[in-house]
Every structure is written in C-alpha cells, then in structure tokens.
C-alpha cells in the first residue's frame, strides 16, 4: 500500500510541475507592464524602474522562474491590493466556506444520482429511466448561475421558504467556534442547534444549485456502467443461482459498476470547482471563488493567480485521492500496479 502511495505521489509530479509553469506564465503576461501596474497610476518612471528591480522583472526569465518557485515554496503568493492581506492568508480563511459548499453539493448529487442511475439501468424504459435521461440532458445544458437565480426566485421571492441569498449565516446568528471551518459540522459539535439551522438554510440553495449541476454526469455514467455490468456473465450466473434481485443489483452489479463512476468524479470535481465560482457570486458566498471574482473586478491580479494555482493544486490532490480510492474499491487495480 505504501509503495502504491509513493508511486501515485510521483505520478502527480509532472502535473504539478506543469501547473506551476503555467501559473508562472500567467503572472508574466499581465496586460501592460507589470511593474507599472504595481507602481500604480501616479508613479514616476523612476518609481516604476525601482519596482521593476524589486520584483526582479529586469532579470532573465529563467531566474524569474526560479524566484517564483522559491516564493511559492515559502507559501508567498503575493499581497492582495484590495484586502491588504497576504493572498495565502485570505485563501486559507475563505477555503472552508468553499469546501463546505462544494462537498455539500457533491454529497447531495451523489445521494440522488446513484439511486436514479441504478434504477434507470435496472428498469429500462421506466419512469426512472426517462427521468434519468431528462436530468442528464437538462443538467448539462443549464448554466449554473441561471439555475441558482431560478431557485432564488422560486424559494426566496415566491415561496419565502429560504433566507436572502447573502452568505453563510443570517445576520443575527454568529459563527460557531471554529473546529473544521464547516459551519454545519462546527455548530453541531458545539451543540448550537439554532446556528446549525441557520447555516443549513443558507447552504441549501447554493448546495442544491451545485447538486443539480453535478447530478447529470454522475447519473449518466452510473446508468451506462450499470447497464454494462448487468449484461455481464457473472450477473447472469448470480441470477441463475437464485440470488435475490436486490443482492444481485447492489452487491454484485453495483460494486463492479462503481469504478467508472469514481473516475467520472474527477471530471465532476473539475466542473464543480469552476461552477463554485459562479454559484458563490450568485449567493454572495464568502468563499475563495467570490474572492477571486472581486479581485478580478478590481484588477487585483495576485489573488486571481493565487486562486488559480490553489484550485489547480486542490484538483491534483483530489485526483490523487480518487486514484487511491480506486485501489481500495477494486483490489485488482492495486495489485496490477505493484
């Protein structure tokens, strides 16, 4: 197991290197003159030259790259001009909000999509099958920010069930003591039922928006992969041996069908991390996505670059976890690699 872990870690290195190089390139092709930009509009040519020296922009590109990598290794992503804080600190304080939202949406999507996909495959042509097809086609066509707005209109304005789409807690509640940074978990851990209710009410709509978005690929691949497995010989054998339909479907078929689903999760994460930005903007969610958007609008580039890099690294880590989960779910994968 340890060896597999090390092997897997090594395979992420090229991706990591690629990400760092691309992020470096992105910082160096800033519109206009980077030094002039950092110096501000009222700077004299001397001041700009001074800043160019300070930033090392007068150095050859390989040296600049070396400097960039050293700064990264020290965790220095630069300063945000709007908040005046180091970008890393900003990202750290806002990441739990985004992570909670993304995971909430993903879990919601899985809870609905897996049974739906299985049902659609087991009972082809049934209501569940048609529902699955509609969900799969509509889900990929709906712009995520549009779904979010529709939900706000329906549940906030028309029905009045949901609080105003502004942040993680309503204005009267205070944040629970920080344990994980996830308000849902922290409030439960502290036994603050009111806070939990408030946090749940706030996260419900953005979470649902993300879930609708993630539902489509998961349901689609679950159905396809279940269909393939249900036609396999071992399922026929299990049925012939007189096992109950439930046991055949859940224990025999689903366990084997789950691998393609896990693979798809990698793609789903890629979509979710992007959709997160849009959903956070719609719901004024104080996560890293809205941080990057605010910085973008203010032409504050360091946070945007930090955000892109952080999301890429997060995505690599998630893919690594998915790879490892692969080995746990299907022991054959691990033994083949060793």
């Amino acid at each position, binding site marked *: 197991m340890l060896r597999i872990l090390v092997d897997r870690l090594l395979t992420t290195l*090229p*991706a*990591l290197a*690629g*990400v760092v*190089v*691309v*992020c470096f*390139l*992105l*910082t160096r*092709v*800033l*519109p206009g003159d980077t030094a002039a930009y950092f110096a501000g509009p009222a700077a004299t040519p001397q001041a700009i030259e001074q800043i160019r020296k300070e930033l090392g922009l007068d150095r050859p590109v390989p040296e600049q790259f070396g400097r960039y990598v050293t700064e990264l290794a020290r965790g220095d992503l630069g300063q945000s001009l709007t908040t005046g804080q180091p970008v890393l600190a900003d990202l750290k304080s806002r990441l739990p909000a985004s992570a909670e939202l993304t995971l909430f949406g993903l879990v919601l999507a899985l809870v609905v999509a897996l049974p739906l996909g299985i049902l659609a495959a087991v009972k082809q042509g049934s209501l569940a099958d048609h529902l699955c097809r509609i969900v799969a*086609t*509509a889900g*990929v*066509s*709906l*712009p*995520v*920010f*549009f779904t979010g*707005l*529709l939900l*706000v*209109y329906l549940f*906030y*304005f028309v029905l009045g069930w949901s609080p*105003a*789409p502004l942040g993680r807690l309503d204005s009267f509640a205070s944040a629970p003591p920080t344990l994980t940074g996830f308000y849902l978990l922290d409030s439960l851990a502290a036994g603050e039922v009111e806070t939990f209710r408030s946090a749940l009410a706030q996260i419900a709509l953005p979470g649902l928006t993300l879930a609708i978005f993630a539902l489509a690929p998961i349901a*689609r691949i679950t*159905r*396809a992969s279940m*269909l393939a497995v249900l036609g396999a010989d071992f399922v026929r054998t299990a049925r012939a041996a007189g096992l109950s339909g439930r046991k055949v479907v859940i224990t025999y078929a689903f366990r084997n069908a789950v691998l393609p689903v896990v693979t798809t999760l990698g793609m789903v*994460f*890629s*979509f*979710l*991390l*992007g*959709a997160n*930005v*849009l959903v956070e*903007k*719609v719901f004024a969610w104080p996560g890293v996505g809205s941080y*990057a*958007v605010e910085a*973008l*609008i203010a032409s504050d*580039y360091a946070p*945007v*670059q930090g*955000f*892109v890099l952080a*999301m*890429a690294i997060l*995505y*690599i880590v998630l893919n690594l976890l998915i790879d490892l989960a692969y080995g746990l779910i299907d022991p054959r994968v691990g033994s083949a690699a060793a």
Partner: protein
Amino acid sequence: MSLAVQPAAAPAPRPPVEASGLRATLSHARHVVGDNPVTGFAFGLLLLLVACAILGPWIAPYDPLASDTSAALAPPSLAHPFGTDQLGRDILSRVIVAARLDLAIAVFSVILVFAAGGLAGVAAGFYGGWTDRIVGRVADTIMAFPLFVLAMGIVAALGNTVTNIVIATAIINFPLYARLARAEAAVRRNAGFVQAARLTGNTDARILLTSILPNIMPLMAVQMSLTMGYAILNAAGLSFIGLGVRPPTPEWGIMVAEGASFIVSGEWWIALFPGLALMLAVFCFNLIGDGLRDIVDPQRRT
C-alpha cells in the same frame, strides 16, 4: 468505423462506393431522426438561433441599446413581450441581438481549437515519439486545472477582451480534441490505405491531410457540436462574472448578471429570458451532438 474507411477505397470504383455510403448515411440519418424526433427539433432550434444571429438587428423590434427610462422595469407585455430592464431597454431585442455575439464566440473558439487540437493530435498519433509526448504533456497540463478556473486565469492574464474569451475557451477544450484526433490517427497510422498512400510516394503532410484527416472528420464533427454547447456556457459564465463582454453590449451571460440583482426583488424577466436563450442554445447543440454521434458512431450511444 466501416463507414469512415470506405472513402479510401481504390480510386476507380470510388464514386459509386461514396454514393452508396452517402445514401446509407442519409437513410441512417433519417432513421435516427425518425427514431428520435428530438434531433429534428434540435435542428429546428438551430435554424432559429442562426436566423437570430444573422438577421438579429433587423428582426429585433427595438434598438437593443436604446434606453427609455419611462418604461424601465416593465414586466412582459404586448409592447415588450420579454419586458424591459432597469434602463427601459427591450429585453426581447437584446436577447435576439445577443445571439450573434454568443454564437460567434462559440463558433470561433471551436474552429480555433479544432484547427489547433486536431492538427496537434493527428500529428501526435501519426508520428508518435517526441511529437506525441509534447502534445500529450501539454494536454495533461491543461487537464490538471479545473477548466473554468483556468479560463478565468487566462482571461485575467491576457486581458479582459472578447478575443481572449475565445482564446481561453479554445485552450480549455484543446485536450479533448487533441486526444480524440490522436487516438483516431494512431489507429490508422498503419492502415492499408495509409501504406498505399505512402507507397505511391505521398509526403507525410499530404497523407495526414488527405488520408487521415478526412477519416476522422465525422468524429471531430460530433465533438465540435458537443463542445459548442460547452463553449457557449463557458463564455457566458465568464461574462457573468464580469470578464470579456462589457455592458451595454447585449450578451446572454452579462444580461443574466444584470438581472441577478433584480431577482430578489421579484423582477424575474430581466434574467429569465436571456438565461432561457442560453439554455436553449446549449441544449440545442448538445442534442445535435448526441444525434450526430448516433449517426457517426452508433456504438457509443448510451
């Protein structure tokens, strides 16, 4: 697959083979459309979209930029079927006129990535070796990013213009095209018709362009249709967060963004109609892509 290889048959009997291949494809297409009326519906929708994109300024009832503060925030009525926005601009006209920009962004980015990704992928599959490794590495690096986030980063870095939205959308779709083209070219690298072309003294470039590329075109066409929808969504998402298109230019994403702040006070029509247009456009291309795939590659049907 057999369909795709047919045009490369010996030159003499080629016209009849192609004709019967074409006829088979057409009858297959008719079968698929008949079997799946949804595809026919999608083609109708496409015609409507293209008509709006080409004729937009002429069929729009009002000037999409003309504001009329006396009629601001009017709900849908006979005079303004989709209502008006906070400046009294007619939303129907803006939705119609926006079709051109939205489709243009998607079409240009898809053409760009088709040319770049298709050529790189075909070369990678055909030559293997270093070409393959470099193209593969570039594709892997792009795939290591969450794609929308990368697009944000690219537009932020290159500058906030529509051209850069097109470029960013093309870049994030590059791996899809490069990989597809690579796989298809690698399969055909040593196929009989390629060897025949080589034996008769054709250059590599000529073999790539006249023997291999035409054979993978059907699959690439499916890919183009499917990524059109994604490209529209992506561009709209970028303009929704304030990148690329600037107000008052009519564009669906930015119109939804403008309507977003009015949703909480109940003025639903400002965001709804451009959002619906966006959704229908994406839906249309996805359906056509699925339909085309059923024709070109029935085995991948799910």
